């Protein structure tokens, strides 16, 4: 039986990176995710798997180290929290523009500005809608448990290399700081040189006689070249939307009312669904696990089944816009959120739900 360990979500990220053959981590301390780099430094993976771990001078530098590492075809990652991710957005845009695979972990805290160190989900728009400049998307995965934090590292890299795109693991302070049981999956070694060349023939591995030299760039000064490249990117995103949208459902089969929530909010909404069911109200929950691509298709189907939907987020109402786009007017869509690091209780959500639906 696989070993089960009690650990924080942030620690799970670090342990998973080492155990899943990640080649390099580059980061900068920021609450509430500093345990990621602290755990890596404590574990000293450079002595075991050969993984490189480096504390950079800034988030700007971290993401550009990730860019450099990704150019060479390595599995590289960084982690930060909201204000740090703002600094990284330039780099993420470059990574998308240069079609480079990498993993960026955002353990969200409340903003804007320096904000609060308490948990939040207010970077949905930043991470799902771009954040950096230009027409690009990153694949966004939303973990809801320490086990997800562990598992999504490997899943993230799989998607990143499959589509040559940055993947963002969008967590929150609760998932990052909470300790839960984590099952350690089978160890994956780091890729060998041959495996790397097979997985990333485009990489800057040194020009050999059997190929032209490789250039990793996001520059295309000619409009037609840039437009053609953008069309290629959009085709890739379309394929991602068609193939990779992932969600889970809870009590939706006969649901008359639907909650939509991601990350820690989805966990809290499960309790709300249980409570409402006990009161005879047929509630259900859809948890988008990927935020880009979004569960648009399934929400459109459910909009014909339920009387209303409600998006529950630790922000001022961001994902609710995507829910409304998916539903396209087919049923009323409400929103309830908390901000500034405050967390709703199941009772509070149930009250907001009843108010929105005129129920007692």
């Amino acid at each position, binding site marked *: 039986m696989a070993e089960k*360990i009690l650990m924080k979500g942030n620690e799970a990220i670090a342990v998973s990176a080492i155990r899943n053959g990640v080649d390099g981590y580059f980061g900068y301390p920021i609450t509430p995710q500093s345990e990621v780099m602290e755990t890596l430094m404590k574990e000293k993976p450079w002595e075991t798997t050969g993984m490189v771990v480096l504390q950079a001078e800034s988030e700007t530098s971290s993401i550009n180290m990730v860019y450099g590492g990704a150019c060479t075809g390595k599995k590289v990652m960084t982690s930060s929290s909201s204000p740090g991710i703002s600094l990284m957005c330039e780099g993420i845009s470059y990574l998308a523009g240069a079609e480079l695979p990498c993993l960026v972990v955002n353990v969200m805290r409340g903003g804007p500005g320096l904000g609060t160190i308490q948990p939040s989900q207010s970077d949905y728009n930043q991470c799902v809608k771009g954040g950096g400049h230009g027409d690009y998307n990153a694949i966004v995965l939303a973990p809801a448990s320490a086990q997800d934090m562990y598992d999504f590292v490997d899943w993230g890299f799989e998607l990143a290399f499959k589509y040559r795109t940055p993947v963002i693991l969008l967590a929150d302070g609760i998932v990052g700081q909470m300790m*839960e049981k984590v099952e350690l999956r089978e160890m994956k070694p780091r890729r060998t040189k041959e495996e790397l060349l097979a997985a990333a023939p485009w990489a800057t591995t040194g020009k050999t006689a059997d190929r032209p030299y490789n250039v990793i760039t996001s520059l295309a000064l000619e409009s037609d070249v840039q437009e053609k490249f953008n069309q290629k990117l959009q085709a890739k995103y379309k394929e991602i939307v068609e193939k990779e949208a992932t969600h889970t459902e809870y009590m939706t089969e006969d649901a008359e009312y639907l909650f939509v929530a991601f990350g820690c909010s989805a966990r809290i909404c499960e*309790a709300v669904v249980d409570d409402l069911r006990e009161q005879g109200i047929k509630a259900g929950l859809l948890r988008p696990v990927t935020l880009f691509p979004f569960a648009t298709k399934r929400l459109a189907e459910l909009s014909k089944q339920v009387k209303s939907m409600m998006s529950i987020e630790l922000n001022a109402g961001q994902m609710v816009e995507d829910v409304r786009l998916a539903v396209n007017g087919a049923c009323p869509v409400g929103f309830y959120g908390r901000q500034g690091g405050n967390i709703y209780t199941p009772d509070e959500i149930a009250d907001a739900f009843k108010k929105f639906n005129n129920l007692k």
Partner: protein
Amino acid sequence: MKEEIIIAGFGGQGVLSMGKILAYSAIMQDMEVTWMPSYGPEMRGGTANVSVILSDKKIGSPIVTKYDTAIILNQQSMDKFEQSVKPGGLLLYDPNGITRHPERTDITICRIDAIDVAAKVGNSKVYNMAVMGAYLKMKPLVDMVNVDKGLAKCIPARYSDLIALNKQAIEEGMNSVVTL
């Protein structure tokens, strides 16, 4: 089975590590657990809270407002959490420094004089294990054999000589808890 616990006291009383040892022990018994340090304004003022959920099923919300058990180690926490115990639930507290004792009549109230227990064992650091012993006596959800394993997971190998001391404190705590 699902047990929702709040452990609250001053920083330095070992509140967070007690929660961790309890949670790890439950994992050794193949239970699901969540351990969450408290967020929000209640973090201020030097108090430390952790909510621990033990369950035989997958745990949904880690955020709860009503607890099956409140373990209360200072007055602020008493004021804050006495009313959060579910009817029929358990409130375990250390009377040391408590000026207003619990008044609820619809719950079980227990006292553990954990400072005395720690003094008896001869090490003030095992204060929190005395409290945990009292809790396990009242709610024997985790077998001692798994508590041993949980302790071994939480205490770094270089301090392994402390495991016996912690165990002694747990046992003394079990013997010293008083139901009111």
